């Protein structure tokens, strides 16, 4: 459903992505692994239109969306849960959700209210805190809010940039449960993750990004057998 073709994105003279090609299948959980500085976040920001690629193309549902403004890409059906959550700290939880629905100019107010209700049902903690400022929430709660805010745009494809970053193991479990639930409800997911063990449990397809290039492309089975990945990402001890 998403096809990234030979994308080069640069900050000034430094190319963070040096010709990335990958695809995300409909109804699948696709996982992007890679060390810090490999360009994972740059790729997410390029797909969502925050950064403009220097070369290459991004196609979604066979339509070219390369270089479109972020608003157009959200409306096309791609939403990103950004790295570090980036909730609006001095807006209430409810207002954060409303901001998430900003792009839905065609939806009636009642429809958006229904979706907010659905988010509160999915994340009961958010209902409890709906009138609280988002900046006062715990890290895990902010991550839930960030996911819920992205879902308020009703995306067909949800991008998640390291949703487990900096969270306690129990919360990480919870986040991955949410990933499974969302997938079961029909959302395709493109997940950036450093936690390869957790990712192995949910993803259908893996890419490894290193220094701006895709260096591995395969199924979970192939990945678990790949020696380089074994050494760098799975280690010898099972920690999960």
């Amino acid at each position, binding site marked *: 459903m998403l096809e990234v073709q030979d994308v080069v994105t640069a900050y000034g003279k430094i190319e963070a992505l040096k010709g990335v090609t990958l695809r995300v299948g409909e109804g699948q959980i696709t996982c992007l692994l890679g060390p810090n500085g490999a360009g994972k976040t740059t790729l997410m920001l390029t797909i969502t239109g925050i950064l403009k690629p220097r070369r290459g193309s991004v196609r979604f549902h066979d339509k070219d969306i390369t270089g479109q403004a*972020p*608003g157009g890409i959200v409306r096309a059906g791609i939403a990103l849960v*950004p790295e570090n959550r980036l909730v609006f*700290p001095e807006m209430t939880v409810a207002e954060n959700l*409303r*901001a*998430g629905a900003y792009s839905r100019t065609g939806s009636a107010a009642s429809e958006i209210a229904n979706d907010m209700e659905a988010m509160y049902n999915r994340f009961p903690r958010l209902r409890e805190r709906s009138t609280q400022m988002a900046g006062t929430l715990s890290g895990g709660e902010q991550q839930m809010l960030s996911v819920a805010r992205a879902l308020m*745009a009703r995306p067909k494809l949800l991008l998640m940039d390291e949703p487990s970053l900096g969270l306690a193991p129990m919360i990480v479990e919870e986040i991955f449960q949410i990933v499974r639930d969302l997938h079961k409800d029909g959302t395709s997911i493109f997940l950036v993750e450093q936690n390869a063990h957790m990712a192995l449990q949910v993803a259908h397809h893996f890419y490894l990004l290193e220094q701006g290039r895709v260096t591995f492309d395969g199924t979970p089975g192939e990945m678990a057998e790949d020696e380089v990945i074994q050494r760098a990402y799975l280690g010898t001890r099972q920690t999960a």
Partner: protein
Amino acid sequence: MEFIDIVLSISDGVLFGTTYALIGIGFTMIFGVMHKINLAYAATSIGGAYVSWAISTLVPLPAILVFLISAIAAGVIGWLVYLCCFRLVPLDTPLTTLLATVGMLIFIDEVVVHETDGMPQPYPAIFDDVFFEFGEFGLRGDLLFIFVLSFAAMLVLLYLLYRTRLGIATRAVAQQPMAAQLCGISIERTNASTFVITGMLGGLAGAMIGASVGVLSPLLTLPVTVKGLIVTVIGGLGSIPGAIIAGLMVGAFENLFLALRGVTERDMYVMLLLFLFLTFRPGGLFHRSALRD
């Protein structure tokens, strides 16, 4: 000087201080949304008042309409300032936009001086013949009107910010621009609308200042710029409640020292107040940077 005179000068100052509060809100909102200082803001406000004066010399208009025209004109000027100083100029070098706004401040001033030969022009007031007496205490009708109108404008602004889509977009961009974009909010459109809204507030403040003085003069822009910046700093950069409280405070403070020490010393004490804040509370009344990540 009797005690009642002190009370009167403070209350008059608080009433007039609402215009400083409006100017401070303008500076602080632009800073909040763009993290940039627009030094042409007070000039925008006075410029709006001048446009309304120019129109009123062509067609006789009731004062309230003149004030309204001032607000609209300053909204348009605010948008032009945005285009010239923030849209067409690269944003990543902070000094560029700052100097562009200084240029704009001087440009607007020069246009005014050119069109009026530098002479002060009469500006209409409302209720300047009304005086409310409560025993020894009393309130000037025109100042009371300024107070009510300014607060009404602030209420409209708060409604816009906290009850509308535009408000969600504005606050989202101010708090977390990248996430705002990911929600489909256009940063450029939000910046532009912020300049128009703050321009309208400033135009209203400019008209109120003109009305209370009775004349418009190009000599107004510099002191209003300075007072607006002082209000912004005392209130805390980016804080609207801070700007409101600081505006009233500066108004009261300057009027008190006007009564105590005379017009030539007044502003020295306002500067002293700024100095005290910068020394003992540099973040202002409502310090916010802690909440941004």
